[in-house]
């Protein structure tokens, strides 16, 4: 059982950072909802610290997702093949554009994904800041909660678009190559 280095990095970007971030969304919505009722009086400090760490981790994951995607995976995706190359398997963007039936995956999918994903870390950093700065005062700050909830919802949408296209793109033209990492040797 082996995997190439580029495959491993793509898995880390999509399934490690991205999917973990998506899974955390329901918790973020629950935290924002809970903030409307104030912190539980029996464990206020520990509860608030946990909420803050949770949202900070989400913001951190969103930054790791876009930075690994833009600066690690994307250069492999958009690499230019040498002149006269006929096997484009190692050049996903050019492979997709070489066929009118797959060109749309790049022209719509990747062109949208590469930009829309960047709305998420901006939004989630703002949401984490609001919760760290205001804490239990958010119970009396409905407009702040509404903004946090709205930006969180848009971040979810942006991540869903980027993640869905990422999964389809990697199926149509996988980022593949580099040194092979042996995970398990068969008998």
């Amino acid at each position, binding site marked *: 059982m082996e995997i190439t280095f580029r495959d491993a990095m793509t898995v880390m970007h999509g399934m490690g950072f991205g999917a973990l971030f998506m899974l955390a969304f329901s918790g973020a919505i629950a935290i924002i909802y809970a903030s409307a009722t104030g912190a539980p009086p029996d464990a206020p400090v520990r509860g608030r610290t946990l909420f803050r760490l949770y949202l900070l981790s989400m913001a951190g994951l969103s930054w790791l997702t876009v930075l690994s995607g833009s600066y690690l995976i994307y250069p492999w995706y958009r690499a230019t093949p040498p002149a006269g190359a006929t096997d484009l398997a190692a050049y996903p963007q050019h492979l997709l554009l070489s066929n009118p039936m797959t060109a749309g995956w790049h022209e719509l999918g990747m062109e949208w994904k590469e930009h829309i994903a960047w709305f998420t870390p901006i939004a989630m950093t703002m949401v984490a800041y609001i919760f760290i700065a205001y804490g239990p005062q958010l119970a009396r700050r409905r407009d702040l909660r509404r*903004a946090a909830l709205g930006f969180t919802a848009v971040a979810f949408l942006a991540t869903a678009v980027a993640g869905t296209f990422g999964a389809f793109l990697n199926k149509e033209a996988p980022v593949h190559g580099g040194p092979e990492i042996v995970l398990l040797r068969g008998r």
Partner: protein
Amino acid sequence: MARPKSISRVRPVAEAAPALPNGPGAAAILAAGVGSLALGLFALAGDAWPALGNALSVWPPTGPLSGVTAAAVVVWLVAWAALGRIWARREVNLRAVNLAAFAMLAAGLLLTFPPIMDLLEGR
């Protein structure tokens, strides 16, 4: 008969904490809107004008995306720092701030959608 307030409804922490004006929060929200709009505008401009796209290619392996996102992040952080300084101790009209932030966020999202980009570029 009215039900007495239970202990769990008491909010000692919320009441005890010194109230922070909404200005710093409003600054963060409006700056996020400004950064989102900047992202859309830079993405559109980089796509519409190849010369600008090349100039935005600050890290060639990633191409124009590197400059588009870096410039948007810089605009976002500068806006946040500036607004945060101006509104540090102020109560502002948060409803208007939210409206402006969401309008800019929506515009930014639309500007990154390839069919809208193509429409605006006359393709």
